[in-house]
């Protein structure tokens, strides 16, 4: 391992959070981004080829050392580490809405979910998964929420764009527009048909 790779490994190990390349450059004054990337590549190679128990991965716009997933069961069973607690369905729904609609206010979240969501929003804020990113227009200038880098981190995502895009989902994520007048002329889609039983 070359000296820069050593230093990167030590820093990534010490930080225990994803470190962006810019921050890693600070480790060695004047080192270029390309050199840091080359060193990251070397470290990745050492872990993979050396069949280490850890791996190097890019998450939340930074680099992080993590344990290999195939070892998780053994480590959890030995009660050395607790698996992260699962979020409730309500929390996941709220996160999903905020991830795609951010910045988004409470009213819109509740409109989509169909249930009051202030408790869930507070919980997600306390857990550091969402944060207030500004205030909206209109009455009382409602708080607007967005996802945090911790959100990306727990999902192992690099950037928000790594979320599945509209066309990758079975149900398109573009806002649904129901144009009933147009469908009247077509008369084909079920929404116009008289399927209502008494």
């Amino acid at each position, binding site marked *: 391992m070359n000296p820069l790779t050593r230093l990167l490994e030590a820093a990534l190990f010490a930080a225990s959070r994803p470190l962006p390349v810019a921050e890693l450059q600070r480790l060695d004054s004047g080192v270029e981004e390309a050199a840091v990337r080359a060193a990251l590549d070397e470290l990745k190679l050492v872990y993979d080829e050396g069949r280490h128990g850890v791996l190097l991965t890019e998450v939340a716009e930074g680099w992080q050392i993590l344990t290999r997933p195939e070892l998780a069961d053994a480590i959890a069973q030995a009660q050395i580490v607790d698996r992260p607690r699962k979020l409730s369905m309500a929390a996941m*729904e709220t996160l999903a809405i905020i991830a795609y609609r951010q910045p988004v206010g409470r009213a819109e979240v509740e409109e989509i*979910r169909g249930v009051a969501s202030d408790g869930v929003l507070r919980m997600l804020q306390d857990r550091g998964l969402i944060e207030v990113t500004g205030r909206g227009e209109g009455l009382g200038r409602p708080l607007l929420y967005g996802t945090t880098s911790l959100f990306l981190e727990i999902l192992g995502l690099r950037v928000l764009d790594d*979320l599945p895009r509209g066309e990758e989902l079975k149900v398109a994520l573009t806002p649904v527009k129901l144009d009933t007048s147009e469908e009247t002329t077509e008369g084909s889609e079920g929404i116009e048909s008289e399927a209502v039983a008494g």
Partner: protein
Amino acid sequence: MADTIPSPQSPPDQGFVVRLDAFNGPLDLLLTLIRDQAIAITDIPIAKIADQFLAVVHTLGLNEAADYLEMATRLVRIKIQLLLPRPLDDEDWEDPRAELVRRLLEYEQVREVVGWLVERAADHGDRFPRGWILEPAEAAPRPITFDLAQLLGAVEDVLAGMPHPVWHRVVARPLDVEGATRRIRSLLEGRERLSLVECFGEHFTVADVISTLLAVLELARQGEIHLAQETPFGNVDVARESTHQAA
């Protein structure tokens, strides 16, 4: 999230909150009913679904949950709207189900994303970060930075977010009923009767006229004075009520 509707035979002593957990809100319940019966979201037999929805809400003891009741009301309203006759060639007619369909599709999208997120989080949850927190508990936490601009910015945010803005501005008070009342009373101290115009005071404004009229009406209501008008559009006499002695 429940794939099936919990059976009505579930123990009666089961807590309300536990039962509520069976569904993640009214849209979840509605979507479950629709999926269970393989119904197209865009073609919901509202009457049938509304009845089923109400039955489940009742069975699960969700009657007190406002969100569910609101949806139940909405479904019944749509059911009634669909039963109403409508002109055959009414181009403005909108399917009363449209809004509900839009919301259900939107919610279905959210659920699909949730499925992806759950899977992703489970996969990533198997990759543990370093557990050792380098800073010992007694070490100073990371330093905090902020500056005056940020502090004042936060003040602006607080002010902008307050429901009742609080800048105080002194403005001319348009009406002064109390002043007019005092003026009428003092005028009536010396005389038993006077004309309404006299009550307005000198150099009166529109505001003075309105204030005086309000004061006169209030005093008359309280029985302190009585009003008389001899002819239509004629002068109005304001007289001290005989039982009321001037202060």
